[in-house]
């Protein structure tokens, strides 16, 4: 034990003085480890912040809610299910109406269509909204509660609005702040692509999610949206259906029923695949998990290569250090150092060098990851598990790549080594 403490003290002293003499060379070697470790830590930090807000997002959405869409709405995984099948038919208004009539386990079914983000110009008189809308949607009365929005003044959409395709609008708090800073917007007229709409309701602010304002949004009746904003043939326009079962216990049964009925509406023969996508919140979670998984794999690969290169660098620097210190090793051996003493001295040095690079990498990675998280509006996090893994990885690298130089050093013959110059 006493010897081990001595090695450590010696090795730390050795590494420090070594640094003093070969700053550039050692720093370049460390750079490789630093890049590898910092990329791991940065990406894990970003993912951790996303996971945190994603958990919030999902628990924010009612869990007895599920969706029927043309394609998987979350298209962010590498490879995977990918960017959907262009040949899938749109989900149409008439399918929505047929489905609505046939479901028994679904408490509520809403049709919605959204542009996220939207390029529409929004204006009041001569004032035009500077920022683009993050969401411009058509929907019905249920959409607000499904998405956890609250009305702070005015009224919600109602059935007459849908039936008559009235030009009325719900506006998010950002819109009020920018276009009606000093007045009540209710009853005022705003223009969406120069089409006048009457503001009927103002929504309570919700803040940001994944770096985007949840309040830069405008909602209008779905029928109005389809009629004015969905192109020439609104009956063929693609919509999204949001369904809600009675409770979380019945969501599976309700999902099964909806799939069955929708297949019947589309006359899909038994055994054929669904030509639509049904999404539960669980699936959204899975999709995120897939995305995080493939990103981790990709970054792991990049980091792995960079660490391998760095490891070879460590082996190289230890071999250089070995040649420079043959005489020292000879003297130490003559004075009583055994093979194992020299072996451990070199190995500990290699571990210390790679740990040093790792710690710098962890600090840089945390800083970078949290800067990214900050700009995405997330709270800072420290992925402690990955910090821990990184330290382990670095220590292992020191051992693996320090092994050969350490063995080589320990096998030097004291007589010849002392004569070496």
């Amino acid at each position, binding site marked *: 034990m*006493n*010897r081990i403490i001595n090695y450590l003290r010696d090795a730390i002293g050795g590494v420090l003085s070594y640094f003093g003499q070969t700053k550039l060379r050692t720093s370049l070697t460390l750079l490789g480890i630093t890049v590898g470790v910092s990329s791991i830590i940065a990406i894990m930090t970003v993912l951790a912040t996303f996971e945190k807000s994603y958990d919030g997002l999902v628990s924010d959405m009612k869990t007895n809610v599920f969706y029927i869409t043309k394609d998987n709405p979350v298209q962010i995984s590498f490879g995977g299910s990918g960017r959907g099948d262009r040949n899938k038919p749109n989900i149409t208004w008439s399918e929505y109406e047929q489905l609505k009539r046939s479901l028994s386990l679904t408490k509520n079914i809403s049709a919605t269509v959204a542009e996220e983000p939207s390029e529409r110009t929004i204006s009041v008189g001569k004032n035009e909204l500077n920022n683009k809308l993050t969401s411009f949607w058509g929907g019905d009365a249920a959409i607000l509660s499904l998405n956890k929005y609250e009305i702070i003044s005015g009224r919600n959409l109602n059935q007459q609005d849908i039936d008559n395709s009235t030009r009325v609008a719900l506006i998010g708090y950002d819109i009020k702040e920018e276009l009606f800073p000093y007045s009540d917007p209710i009853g005022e007229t705003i223009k969406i692509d120069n089409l006048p709409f009457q503001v009927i309701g103002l929504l309570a602010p919700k803040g940001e999610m994944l770096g985007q304002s949840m309040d830069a949004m405008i909602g209008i009746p779905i029928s109005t949206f389809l009629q004015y904003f969905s192109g020439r043939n609104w009956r063929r326009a693609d919509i999204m259906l949001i369904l809600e079962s009675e409770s979380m216990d019945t969501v599976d049964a309700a999902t099964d029923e909806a799939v069955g009925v929708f297949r019947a509406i589309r006359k899909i023969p038994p055994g054929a695949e669904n030509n639509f996508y049904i999404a539960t919140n669980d699936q959204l979670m899975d999709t995120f998990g897939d995305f995080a998984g493939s990103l981790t794999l990709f970054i792991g690969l990049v980091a792995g290569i960079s660490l391998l290169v760095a490891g070879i660098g460590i082996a190289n620097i230890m071999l250089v250090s070995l040649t420079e210190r043959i005489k020292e090793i000879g003297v*130490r051996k*003559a*004075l*009583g*150092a*055994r093979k194992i003493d020299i072996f451990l001295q070199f190995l500990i040095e290699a571990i210390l060098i790679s740990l040093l690079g790792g710690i710098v990498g962890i600090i840089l990675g945390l800083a970078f990851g949290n800067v990214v998280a900050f700009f995405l509006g997330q709270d800072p996090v420290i992925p402690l598990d990955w910090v821990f893994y990184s330290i382990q990885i670095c220590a292992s690298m020191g051992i693996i790549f320090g092994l050969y130089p350490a063995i080589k050093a320990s096998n030097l013959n*004291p*007589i010849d080594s002392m004569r070496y110059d």
Partner: protein
Amino acid sequence: MPKSKKEIIAIDSISKIYHLGDNVVKALDDVSISIYENDFISIMGPSGSGKSTLMNIIGCLDVPTKGVYKFSNELISEMNDSQLANIRNEKIGFVFQTFNLLPKLTSLQNVEVPLIYSPLGRTERLQRAEEALRIVGLSDRMAHKPSELSGGQRQRVAIARALANKPSIILADEPTGNLDSKSGVEILNFFDELHKAGNTLIIVTHEESVAKRAKRRVELFDGKIVVDE
């Protein structure tokens, strides 16, 4: 030679044979020698006479090809590398011609090096190292690095390092070879003192003036001991 003295080293007809290509070189040829407590021996001989080989074997840096070497009744000629390292560490103090101090370490740290490989604790290690530096008169140079010391001072640090482990023998290889004559005399005087204090000294040299200081003179020629008086 007073036989009442305790025998430390018993070397019985050892040979060291090197194979250089097809040539067989007998660096040592059937050499026997006994070294007793408080001996002060000079080993002389022209280069190639085998004196370095003999010193390496006595110093447990090398093992003989044939023959028996006992150090305090331990059979050195049969030991493995680790056991040899332990013997070097505990029983032998080395003084080299080129001092062989570690340039990055201070005097104190240099003297500590052999103690690091011994079972001593940190406090005792420091005490021993300080004590050894005090003996060689360098208490005021403990924090200096070798580059900040004169040649004579460096060799004294090296002697302190050799003394630190309280060795059974001190083995000096041309200890004055790299020193000016004044420093050389200083170091030799110091060896005299060590001898008077009861230490066992072996000095390998080719300088007559150095050999004269010793109480016993061993000469090698062609791998054989030709003089032992």
